[in-house]
Each structure stands twice: as structure tokens, then as C-alpha cells.
């Protein structure tokens, strides 16, 4: 009896209920969208590093983000290699440079990584196979997720990078994040690209440890051994630093974070507005029931059941529209925008709690007043 009263309250005026649900549904979509964008900032932070096989890193004390890494003398790499826990050290060079589309001649800024072609920097099949071929001079690998305006990406295409002509010998898949493109070259090619910079300063030192070695312990020992012009970090410390840059130190991170706050506030107000209107529209009916002798608990149960149905039914389309937005955003930008189970659960619970809370709050007027006054 109770359940069907809640349902019948909702279906009594289908159009009004649908419009009300539309408000809450779009609030859910908005929250999903802002959370999705915000989460993308931390996802792109480690896209490149996640493709590389290392346990700890050496960086300059000026390290900001991989494209602004600063540099340190490579002698530190040899020092580090002497540590018993270290299996191998692999230099990583990184910078931004200018790529020219061979067809349209338009130039775009891209991210370039340089590695020693004989180092096993990656265990991903495409990179494992292609990186050794980079020891041929003036060759380059291109991320197939780079923006289309960089031009044709097939092996054999020659593109001008800075002042040099590089031949594409293959493609890999990582994701350039917010950059227009990502390419990988051999260290000799990298040195020629940045104007003859000697390879004895390194941007990032990737270190693979021997099996069984404890990364935190090796980091501590290396930091003590090595001079102050280099920092040692575990992989997770690097991830935290890189993520922090993207989330806190970029305009986008700050704005998306703000967007989440606005969306939460939005959700609270809209949900309260909709649910409290639902209850106050029927206040005289609830008052009648109370005058007839039904308890406050009984009335609260009706409102709660109504709120739950409301929350669930308005959540579902909101979720699917959000999936659509993720798809559109992701396919237009090649950014890794995706839904997570945690996010779905969190938004669902938040929506449910807000709906129930709002409904019950509106009902409180009933508890305090004499039913007759409500007419």
C-alpha cells in the first residue's frame, strides 16, 4: 500500500514529474562531465611515463613537468649504476619542438622524447620492436593519437622538425594529452635537433632495479650518495609530482576543479528545489493524512520511497548522456576521458542522498505544525 502511494504520487502528473526529473538528470550529467574532465588531468599526467619500464628516476631539482624537466650531468647516471640494487640506467631526453606537416607546411608545437635505441626503455610490443630501429640517424616514431594536422603518419613520410628532416619509421600508441603530438627519436637525433647539445646532460634518468630491490631504500641511498644537483624519486613519487602539476599548476586543472565545485553546488540546489517542490505541492494531502491519524514515520516513508524512485529514474538518463559526452570529447581530442566504477557509485549515492534529504527536509514543516494550519 505504502509503495504504491509513492509511485502513484509520481505518476499522477507524468509531464510534471518528467520535467522535474529532467532537472535532476541534467544535474547528474553536469557533475559527471566536470568530474570526467577533472579526472582526465591526472590521467594524462603519466601517459608517457606509463609506457616506459623503470622503477625509480633521477631528475634535476628544477623539474616541473616532463616537457620542462631541466637537466643534470649524466655523470650522475654512472654513479647511480654503481649501486648494487640497480640493474640499468637509461637516459630520457625531453623537450618541446616544432613539427612541420609535409603536405600543408603548417608548423605545430609537439613533445619530443629521446632515448638510447639500444636501451630496453619499454616493454610495450610496438615500442619494443621499433625503438631499436631509431639508431638510424634522423628517424622518428610518431604517436598515432597525435592530431591529424601533423600530417600523414605512414612509415616513409619525411617531416621537418626544427631544422632537420626526420623520416617516420613507425607509429606507437600512447596519447599526447593536451599537446598537438608526441614523437620519439634516438638520442643522437635528439642532440642534433636541439642544436648540438652534448648528450652529457640528461633530462630524466630512468632506472630499472634488480628483482627484489626495494625502491624506497635504493632512492634513499642514492639520494645520499649523489650530489644536490640531482633528485631521486620512486615511480609513484614521480607520478604524484607529475599529477600535481597538471591538476594544480595548470589553468585547466584549476578550472576543471572549480567546475566540479560548481556542479556539486548546482546539484544540491536543483535537487532540493525539485524534491521540496514535490513535497510542498502535496502538503495539504500529507496534512490530511496526518489529521486522519497516520504517523509522521509513515509519511516520511512515503516521501523517502518517492525520493528513491526519483533519484534512480533521473540518474539513468543522466548517466547515459554523460557517457555520450565522454565519447564525443574523447573522440574529438584523443584524450583518455572515461567513466569509472567509483565515479558512477559516488555520483549515484550523492544523488540518492540529496534527493532523500531534500524530500525529508521539506516534510519537516509538517512535523512541527498543527495540520489545520497547513490549509
Amino acid at each position: 500500500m505504502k509503495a504504491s502511494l509513492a509511485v502513484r504520487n509520481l505518476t499522477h502528473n507524468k509531464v510534471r514529474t518528467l520535467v522535474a526529473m529532467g532537472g535532476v538528470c541534467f544535474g547528474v550529467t553536469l557533475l559527471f562531465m566536470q568530474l570526467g574532465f577533472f579526472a582526465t588531468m591526472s590521467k594524462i599526467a603519466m601517459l608517457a611515463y606509463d609506457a616506459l619500464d623503470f622503477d625509480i628516476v633521477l631528475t634535476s631539482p628544477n623539474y616541473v613537468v616532463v616537457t620542462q624537466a631541466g637537466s643534470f650531468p649524466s655523470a650522475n647516471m654512472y654513479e647511480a649504476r654503481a649501486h648494487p640494487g640497480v640493474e640499468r640506467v637509461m637516459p630520457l631526453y625531453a623537450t618541446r619542438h616544432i613539427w612541420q606537416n609535409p603536405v600543408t607546411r603548417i608548423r605545430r608545437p609537439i613533445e619530443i622524447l629521446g632515448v638510447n635505441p639500444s636501451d630496453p626503455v619499454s616493454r610495450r610490443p610496438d615500442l619494443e620492436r621499433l625503438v631499436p630501429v631509431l639508431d638510424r640517424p634522423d628517424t622518428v616514431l610518431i604517436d598515432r593519437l597525435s592530431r591529424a594536422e601533423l600530417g600523414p603518419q605512414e612509415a616513409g613520410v619525411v617531416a621537418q622538425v626544427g631544422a632537420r628532416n626526420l623520416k617516420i619509421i613507425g607509429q606507437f600508441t600512447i596519447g599526447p594529452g593536451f599537446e598537438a603530438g608526441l614523437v620519439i627519436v634516438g638520442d643522437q637525433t635528439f642532440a642534433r635537433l636541439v642544436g648540438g647539445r652534448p648528450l652529457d646532460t640528461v633530462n630524466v634518468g630512468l632506472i630499472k632495479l634488480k628483482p627484489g630491490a626495494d625502491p624506497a631504500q635504493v632512492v634513499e641511498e642514492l639520494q645520499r650518495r649523489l650530489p644536490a644537483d640531482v633528485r631521486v624519486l620512486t615511480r609513484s613519487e614521480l607520478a604524484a609530482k607529475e599529477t600535481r602539476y597538471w591538476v594544480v599548476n595548470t589553468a585547466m586543472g584549476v578550472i576543471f576543479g572549480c567546475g566540479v565545485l560548481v556542479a556539486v553546488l548546482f546539484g544540491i540546489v536543483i535537487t532540493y528545489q525539485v524534491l521540496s517542490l514535490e513535497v510542498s505541492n502535496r502538503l495539504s494531502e500529507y496534512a490530511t493524512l496526518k489529521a486522519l491519524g497516520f504517523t509522521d514515520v509513515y509519511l516520511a516513508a512515503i516521501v523517502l520511497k518517492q525520493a528513491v524512485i526519483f533519484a534512480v529514474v533521473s540518474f539513468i538518463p543522466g548517466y547515459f548522456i554523460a557517457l555520450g559526452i565522454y565519447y564525443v570529447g574523447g573522440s574529438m581530442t584523443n584524450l583518455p576521458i572515461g567513466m569509472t566504477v567509483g565515479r558512477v557509485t559516488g555520483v549515484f549515492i550523492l544523488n540518492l542522498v540529496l534527493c532523500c534529504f531534500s524530500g525529508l527536509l521539506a516534510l519537516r514543516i509538517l512535523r512541527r505544525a498543527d495540520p489545520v494550519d497547513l490549509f
Partner: protein
Amino acid sequence: MRIPPRAPLGLRILMHAPRRLLVSVAGIMLAIVLMFSQSGFRNGVLDSQAELIERLNGELIIVGRLKSLWYVEEPFPSRRLYQARTCPGVQNVYPLYLETSRAVWHNTVDNSTRAVRVIAYNPDDPVIDVPEVHAYAAALKMPDTVLFDEKARDLFGRPQAGTQTELSRRKITVVGTFRLGTDILTDANLIMSDRNFAKFFPAPYQRTHLDEVTAGIVKLAPGAKAETVKRQLTRDLPDDVKVLTKPELVEMEMTYWRENTATGIIFGLGMAVGFAVGIVICYQVLYSSVSSYLPQFATLKAMGFSDAYLVGVVLQQALFLSILGFIPALAAVQGLFMVVGNLTGLLLFLTVGRIAFIFVLTVAMCMVSGIIAVRRVVQADPAEVFR
């Protein structure tokens, strides 16, 4: 709550239930804040990218033929500027030099280094609308001096006049500050003289200093028409350069960011969804508000009031709710822009045009949904509403 007896009926209906009114106004207000903030952030990215261009003191700009975004320099021979000066209608052409890839600033406070953008020109030339350069012209002509952008992000340790540090590994002294603003790719701007620029950033490939410029700022003679001079210059100059009007250059930069970057696309998506959600919420608030009073409207109709009168009352409500929500929303958005603008260094501002657009959109949506809600009374037999 005492309501003046001669107040319009629409307003009296709204004020009859003050708590409900407050909640409805809050809903409208948030919808408006959403639309302003999403479009404001997107516009902020575009406006910030174009800010330096907007401040150029010329009607036409000469750039390299392949120039498609401001960040990629595309230098061309400075000889082109001498050729351009001979064109009729041209009062003067000023060289502008920019450097982004090789410019690295050393922050003495925390010993960090960061990329900066260096803007250089002859301090006597009125190239950019930055009044401080003229004031510091004499100091800027001294060797190894620079002005620093006050609006740079805090990560630079707030250099002041007198700060001594290194730029790209050469000693440099800050002689003053100016105000410009950052953008997505630039965390700080520096202004220096062209002579200093030649020393700090010698042209690669063994050419002599200042042989290549990033842009030529063309100041037209009084009475000259921009389009005419542009056509003439395009004919006169070889095709390793192109001539654009300032609005065209701004549009080129904005188009790149709006359509060709992940940043612009995501912000654009956020803006579109923000508008969609904002509009739906306005619709929903008005619809529920009017719907809860349908019995009263039906009674009025049964009493003999015309349909036009009822629609008029609803339109009044739409207008009142929109205005009541709009004013606090504007205040909230201004506050939000100030905070986020300070945190990010982006240019976030409201213009009359943008305010008017969102206001009209809000009112229109509220009115449309109010009319749809009251249709039941207008079209049907009023007694139906009471069933």
C-alpha cells in the same frame, strides 16, 4: 510578508510562498552562474591567447607566410619591413621579436627555472600598448635589462625592479614591471630592447643579429584604409610573408585554439553542455513554479479572465524570476572570475554583449516554459485542472 496591493499579480503570486520563491531563484541563479562560468572559462582561454595581439599598436600585421598560431614564431627577413615602409598609406612599420623555446628564467627565490616568453622591440617605438615600456625606455636601453610581467604566475618569485638573476644562462636585471597576463602556453612575459634580444637570443644559422623578425607592426597614416593598404602590401611584398589586419590575426589565433587544440575543444564542449543544462534548469524551474499554481490560474479563467491575461501573468513571473536570479548570479560570477583569474593568470571578464546574450537566453527560456506550463489552463476546460 506584506505585499503592496497594487503590485503586479505575477509578482504577488511569487511572493506568496517566500521559501519556494527563494529556492526557485536559487535554481535560476545557479543555472545562470553555470552558463556564465562555462562560457567565461572558454572565452578566457581564447581571450588570453589573443591578448598580446590585441595590444599591438598597428592596424596591420606582417607575419611569416606559414603563421597559423602566435606561439610558433615563423620569422622572416627584416628586409620586408623596409620594403613595407615605402607603401603608400603606411606611416611606419615596427619590428617585433618573440622568443619562447630558448627563454628560460631562473627564479632566485626557490632556485627553479621555468620557460618564459620574451617580447622585444625598440623601446622608442610604440609597438605594444604597454605604457610602462615608454616610462622605462631609458633603462631598457641599458645592456642586460628587462621588464617583468606583474601578472605572471606566482611560481616566478615576484621579480621587482632591482632583481638580478639569469635568463637563459646570461645575467639579467629587472628594471621594472608591467601588466599583460599569461596564457595556456606562457607562464610569464618579459619585455626587453631589441639590442638586448639580439645578444640573448642570437639568430641560429650564423646570420647577423636582428636579421629576422617575428612580426612587423604596421601603423597606417591618418585617413588610410586598412583593407586598401593590406591589398597593396600583399601585392608589393614577396610571398614569404602575409599581411593580416589585427582582427584577422586575433581570429586566426582564436580559431586555432578553439578548433585545433584539445584544450579548446574540451572547453567548448563544457560550454555547450553548460548552456544546455542551464537552459533545461530554467525551463524546469519555471515549469514547476507555474504548474503548482495551475488551480489558481484555472479559477481565474473560470472567473472570466482572458487567456491573454493569464499568459501575461506567467510572462511577468518569468521576467521577475530571471531578474531576481540574474543579479546575484552576476555578483557570484564576478567573484568567481576574480578568484580563478588570480589563480590561473587567465583573462576572465564579462562584456555587455555576453551579459545581454545570457540574460536574453534566460528570460526567453523561462517565458517559453511558463507558457507551455500554462497551456493546460488556456487550452482546456478549467474544470479539467481540478481533477
